[in-house]
């Protein structure tokens, strides 16, 4: 991680802790999670996804959605085979189940 970013994060954490309020800390964590989840793409897959394939998909998504912050990979056997990607309103379904339906 970038040293500047590390230092900024540490500062923020210190300031929150300095308030002495654990509630504030929890609220901040909750807000961060909400914001991060809205900036997180989810890739559902059925089968075995190689690391290289994950990286290819991640790169493609970051190229497509520049504001996106992270990609989450979840195995979902109900798809039978293939992938299904969801990011905010965007849905890409290339699973076998999706083809049936």
């Amino acid at each position, binding site marked *: 991680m970038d040293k500047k970013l590390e230092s900024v994060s540490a500062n923020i954490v210190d300031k929150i802790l300095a308030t002495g309020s654990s509630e504030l800390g929890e609220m901040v964590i909750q807000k961060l999670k909400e914001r991060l989840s809205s900036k997180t793409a989810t890739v559902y*897959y*059925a*089968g*075995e*996804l190689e690391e290289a*394939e994950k990286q*290819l*998909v991640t*790169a*493609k998504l970051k190229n497509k959605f520049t504001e996106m912050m992270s990609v989450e990979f979840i195995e979902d056997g109900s798809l*039978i*085979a*293939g*992938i299904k*990607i969801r990011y905010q309103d965007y849905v*890409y379904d*290339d*699973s*076998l*189940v999706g083809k*049936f*339906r």
Partner: protein
Amino acid sequence: MEKLGIDPILIGAQVVNFLLLLFILKKLLYKPILSMLDERKQRALQIEETQQSLKEAQAGLGKEKEQLVREAKVEADKLLQDARQVSEQVKKQIDHEAREKAAEMMAKSKKEIEAETQKIRENIKQEVSQVAVKVAEEILRDEITPEQRKHVLAESVRRFTNG
């Protein structure tokens, strides 16, 4: 005459008496009585005449009455005939309208039934497709091998990254 015991003076007196009596009776009794009898006779005649004319009038009325009754009967028959005709016409009209209404309702029911049948057919088609899809999914889920799954996944990733 004296030997017979007949007194002419007495007879004369009796005759005079008699005539006097006759005269008096005629004046005081007979005339009024006779005139009264006459009157009665006249009245009786009048009554008879009146009765006769009443009889005639009655006979005339009777004829008139018969005529009126005949005319009334003819009128009544005519009215009855007209009423029967009107009733027949109304009956025919009602029959006709009822048949038309029945035909209309049958046609409407038929359309509704057809629409309902079509709807049911569509529903069945949909359900059958859904079942078919489910069955196909299950079969594929059971039959697909790990290698095939891996191949499909790789192809999917390739399509996404190249697309």
